[in-house]
């Protein structure tokens, strides 16, 4: 391999590619060639750096310079100044919002300081389309160690002692799950990777597959060795074309290197992996539904037991784990269970990747030790709430989770604490909400999702959630009664107790947690017909302040339903009966005379 003194890493994740990172790679290469520097620095397109808010990112190694919001037009300057003259381009550096100073090194950015990257160790560091770069970062060393030096029992023992729990939502101990599949006798077993990331607002699995696909392949092979499976299947969303493409490349390379296929590394262990595509159904994240979908059927869940470890894909013992869980495993094997167990809390070991999104300054992908508090995540890493607004809630766990509030800010995040607080870990989506978000509307938003995604097999989920949604609709229209609030809670409890699968049982969580944490807002909607966030349209009243109105008639001329009347040069008035609350008048008023009440 040729040696370069400097490397220019360009983020090639979905977000940054949408902002032209392909063109950036091209421009950087062109600028290097023009100056005869093509042997001095190499341009590498990597996976996601995590700092999506300021994308596209270009990072220069070895000095770790972190350039943000780079455009193709900036590339010439980066090459001319940084690569050629060794001077940083200050205007592209990250600016610390606290003191307005440029931060040149990513290690000193608040966003990265508290992070420990295990699952994301290679994301934003290596070229995901080149297996040699993965191998250079100890890739496939764990598989080698397992095949040549360890017995399956030893590997299982390591995993159990490490305390690793499933990162897809449930948090079941991974080592135990593998052991269950190992114990069952069968002529054929399967190892499955669940890459059907359906949680709206969670994109860690996609980023791992796009940025470090080999870590998943390696861990699946280790899983096969332990459980006695020779066949692996990755069930991935068809909506992730880039991840699919990178997986295909990774599979081809792994086979060429003899790291998948017959007699891996000269051992008598053979293992290969195929891809299976999802087709857009949230419920397929549930493992029994996922298995039915892989068999070419409707993705409907079935009652457990039998668990997939006894009877899964094609009726054979099947071990299903999620992408992030797999990504942790090679590191645990190499660094040992003691090391892994030293990170995290008593019952939740290691780290967790969270997708920070919503009304937060630093949207992105972060990985923190279990036990980090919400305050640290939102204010230190996330840089606080956008536009200086007031923090209201953070939603974790997606449509199965709940909303946490300011009183939970100092709760250490782990599986058990989140459940105790009325939410759950889920796959790690964290959507931050501010004072402009109405919590009743948020609950309705999630129910809309559940109603659309319910597979319809069991009636509590199919009918119950529909009724919940109708009640919420009624409340946001200002027609709710106290009885409705009572029904909401009762019905939620019934669905929780009686639905067939994990998704149905958790679907009322957004309702229950907002009822618990934001009871006053529900009450206001019902008794005062008021939405304090100004989201629920039907409760809004647009009013013209007579003293501020000069009678310019702009509002009246732009009202689509002629609800505004008044004489020229005299104060106008809005007829509330006719007003459709479209807000057109507010936009047109140059005198700030129209208010929302």
């Amino acid at each position, binding site marked *: 391999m040729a040696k370069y003194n400097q490397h220019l890493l360009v983020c090639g994740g979905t977000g940054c590619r949408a902002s032209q990172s392909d063109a950036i790679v091209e421009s950087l290469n062109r600028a290097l060639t023009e100056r005869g520097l093509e042997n001095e620095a190499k341009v590498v397109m990597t996976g996601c750096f995590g700092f*999506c808010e300021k*994308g596209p990112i270009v990072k220069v190694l070895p000095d770790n310079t972190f350039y943000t919001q780079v455009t193709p037009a900036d590339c010439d300057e980066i090459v001319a100044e940084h690569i050629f003259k060794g001077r940083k381009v200050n205007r592209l550096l990250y600016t610390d919002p606290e003191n307005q100073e440029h931060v040149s090194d990513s290690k000193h950015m608040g966003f990265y300081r508290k992070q420990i990257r295990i699952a994301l160790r290679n994301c934003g560091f290596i070229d995901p389309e080149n297996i040699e770069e993965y191998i250079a970062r100890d890739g496939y060393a764990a598989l080698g160690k397992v095949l040549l030096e360890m017995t399956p029992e030893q590997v299982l023992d390591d995993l159990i002692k490490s305390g690793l729990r499933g990162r897809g939502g449930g948090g079941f101990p991974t080592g135990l799950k593998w052991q269950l599949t190992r114990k069952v006798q069968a002529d054929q077993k399967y190892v499955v990777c669940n890459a059907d990331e359906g949680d709206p607002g969670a*994109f860690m699995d996609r980023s791992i597959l796009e940025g470090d696909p080999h870590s998943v392949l390696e861990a699946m092979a280790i899983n096969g060795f332990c459980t006695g499976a020779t066949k692996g299947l990755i069930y991935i969303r068809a909506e992730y074309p880039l991840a699919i493409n990178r997986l295909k490349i990774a599979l081809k390379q792994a086979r060429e290197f003899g790291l998948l296929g017959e007699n891996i590394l000269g051992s008598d262990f053979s293992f290969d992996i195929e891809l299976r595509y999802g087709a*857009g159904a949230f419920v397929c994240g549930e493992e029994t539904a996922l298995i039915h979908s892989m068999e070419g059927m409707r993705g409907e869940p079935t009652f457990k037991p039998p668990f997939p470890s006894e009877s899964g894909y094609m009726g054979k013992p099947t071990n299903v784990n999620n992408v992030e869980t797999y990504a942790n495993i090679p590191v645990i094997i190499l660094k040992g269970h003691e090391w892994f167990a030293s990170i995290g809390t008593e019952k939740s070991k290691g780290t967790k990747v969270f997708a920070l999104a*919503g009304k937060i300054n630093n*949207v992105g992908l972060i990985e923190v030790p279990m036990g980090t508090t919400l305050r640290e995540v939102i204010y230190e890493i996330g840089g606080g709430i956008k536009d200086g607004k007031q923090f209201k809630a953070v939603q974790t766990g997606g449509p199965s989770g709940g909303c946490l509030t300011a009183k939970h800010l100092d709760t250490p995040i782990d599986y058990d604490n989140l459940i105790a607080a009325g939410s759950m870990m889920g796959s790690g989506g964290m959507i931050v909400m501010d004072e402009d978000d109405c919590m009743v509307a948020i609950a309705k938003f999630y129910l809309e999702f559940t109603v659309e995604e319910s597979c319809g097999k069991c009636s509590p989920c199919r009918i119950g959630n529909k009724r919940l949604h109708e009640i919420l609709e009624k409340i946001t229209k200002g027609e709710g009664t106290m009885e409705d609030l009572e029904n909401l809670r009762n019905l939620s409890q019934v669905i929780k107790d009686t639905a067939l699968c994990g998704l149905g049982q958790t679907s009322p969580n957004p309702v229950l947690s907002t009822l618990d944490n934001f009871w006053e807002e529900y009450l206001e909607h019902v008794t005062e017909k008021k939405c304090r966030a100004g989201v629920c349209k039907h409760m809004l009243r647009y009013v013209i302040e007579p003293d501020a109105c000069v009678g310019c008639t702009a509002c009246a001329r732009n009202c689509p339903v002629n609800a505004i009347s008044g004489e020229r040069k005299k104060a106008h008035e809005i007829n509330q009966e006719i007003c459709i609350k479209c807000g057109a008048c507010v936009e047109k008023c140059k005198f700030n005379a129209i208010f929302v009440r």
Partner: protein
Amino acid sequence: MAEIKLPENKLNQLKEVAKSFNNDGGELINVLHKAQEIFGYLPAEVQEVVAKELNVSVAHVYGVVSFYSFFTMTPKGKHPISICLGTACYVRGAEKVLDEFRKLLKIQVGETTPDGKFSLSGLRCVGACGLAPVVTIGEKVYGRVAPDGVKEILAEYKD
């Protein structure tokens, strides 16, 4: 609905696909993905062919097609527009963006404009939450879309 005559060459293509999957009913979803690539959508006539080739009932094929949101039984527009309705986009105003598209194109979600140029659909998270709200048109991703920027985006597809 009037019966659609499927073009011979595309039909043969579909039969080849089924064959490459060993005409195995367990590969139904993979075959449907390919079929949708070939025909652009999955009308009843295509579903009948798939059922025959894989030796499963038409009802089973229809059950699967109607279950998964990725499969469509109506043709998409030349420029399919998808608005991300994931939570991150929702809290950053995706609904208002969707309303604007509805207003300008005069179609609802799941519909195609009469001239076949645009179709409108909702999408659950493309995972580019840093760019919320996100809209995709064909392969192109638009980030940080504001309602008043919708007109400009549509103007790119004048032809």
